[in-house]
């Protein structure tokens, strides 16, 4: 078990954790957190495996991809939070109703 694989597995773990929480959690803020955890997991897999170049410096392309990804993630998060706030304003609760039609 090398460092790369270890961290990659942690990444997979984070991804699955986030996925589970996204399903289970009703509170929107928690769902948003869950999505962020998921993305961190993906990024971790991406970067950890980029280090399998051995002795030389790690593969920079995944690093660049992750930086892009982080910015995308923060954008989505900001938007999601505002959307959540508006929903709270409309419904008084930070949760999605079970049936959308209500």
């Amino acid at each position, binding site marked *: 078990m090398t460092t790369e694989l270890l961290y990659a*597995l942690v990444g997979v773990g984070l991804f699955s954790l986030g996925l589970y929480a996204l399903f289970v959690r009703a509170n929107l803020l928690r769902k948003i957190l869950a999505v962020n955890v998921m993305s961190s997991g993906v990024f971790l897999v991406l970067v950890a495996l980029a280090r399998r170049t051995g002795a030389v410096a790690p593969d920079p392309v995944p690093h660049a991809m992750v930086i892009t990804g982080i*910015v995308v993630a923060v954008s989505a998060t900001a938007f999601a939070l505002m959307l959540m706030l508006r929903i709270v304003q409309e419904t008084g609760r930070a949760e999605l109703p079970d049936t959308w039609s209500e």
Partner: protein
Amino acid sequence: MVCCRQTATRLASGTSRRGQRCEPDNQRCDATRDQDVDAQNLTQWIFDTLTGLGLLCLAWMALASSQLIKAIVLFVAFGLLMALTWVRLDAVDIALAEVAIGAGLTGALLLAALAKLTAVQTATSKAAHRSPKDRAARKLYRMPAALLLLVAAGLAYSVLSLPLNSRGLSIEVGANLDASGVGNPVTAVLLNFRGYDTLLEIFVLFLALLGVWSLGSLPPHRIEPAGPVLNTLVVVLAPLLILLAAYFLWAGAHGPGGAFQAGATLGAAGVLLQLAGWKPGPGFARLPWKLILLAGPALFILFALFTLVTGQHLLEYAPERAGILILLLETGATFSIGLTLAALFFGERPDDAEGR
């Protein structure tokens, strides 16, 4: 320091592949292996395992904690540990970005959202009770949980089945680094080799702002004014952050750093100012500010159009001018990112905020 870390990692990876891997470029490592391998290796092991477990635990606690505030704090802690992990994985650029954006600004956004959440909930006098849904849902999702474990196991297996040694695109990047105009391979990829991704991604940020602004305004609410301590802190910190941003911007060309880190730091300064009670007025949504807001995307587009009309490939840099062009684009991007993040932290469109 850096060299130590590299040897360390080399050993960590080297020993684990004893026998299977002894390429010429690692002669030295194999030679020096036998003495203190195990001791160093062990510390590495402990460190990595602890970090990994820490990440998982923090994530779980953040997602499982009953109070939102706790969840957010834990999430920020998680972000910081992530940053540490990036350093451990020789990804200093990402570490910086993570500290600034992942942990810092996302945390700030979350906290602000939480503050507004309570404010809004009290404002819209509807009962803001926590429903027992979570527990019910958890029961409901026992099955998915089992299924998810399977998925995770499958993913783990496939990750483990990956080849232990792959160069990815590092060779290509290395070969063309000189022509890229910058010394930092990550920056080279971001702004040159895959500059197109960055172009689109800056528009994602812009889009997020448009989205937030199109959602209209929230009912009046106010975050508690910062105490005098914070105020003085801000007075000191804000200029520092701005300087830091400038440094990152400049350093990005050769070492760790770059537009995103810089922009994020700038954004952090904006956030601090707002914490200190400064509010962007309606003018903030008018043309001059808009122009700064769009500096990044606009410069990118103009450059793209330039390459289009001059019959080059899209976003093609002439090697001799690449460095300065990239710096220019990065400067624009820095302003945009900083301002956008600050605006995102503020939330609704300033003139809407005035309008109510």
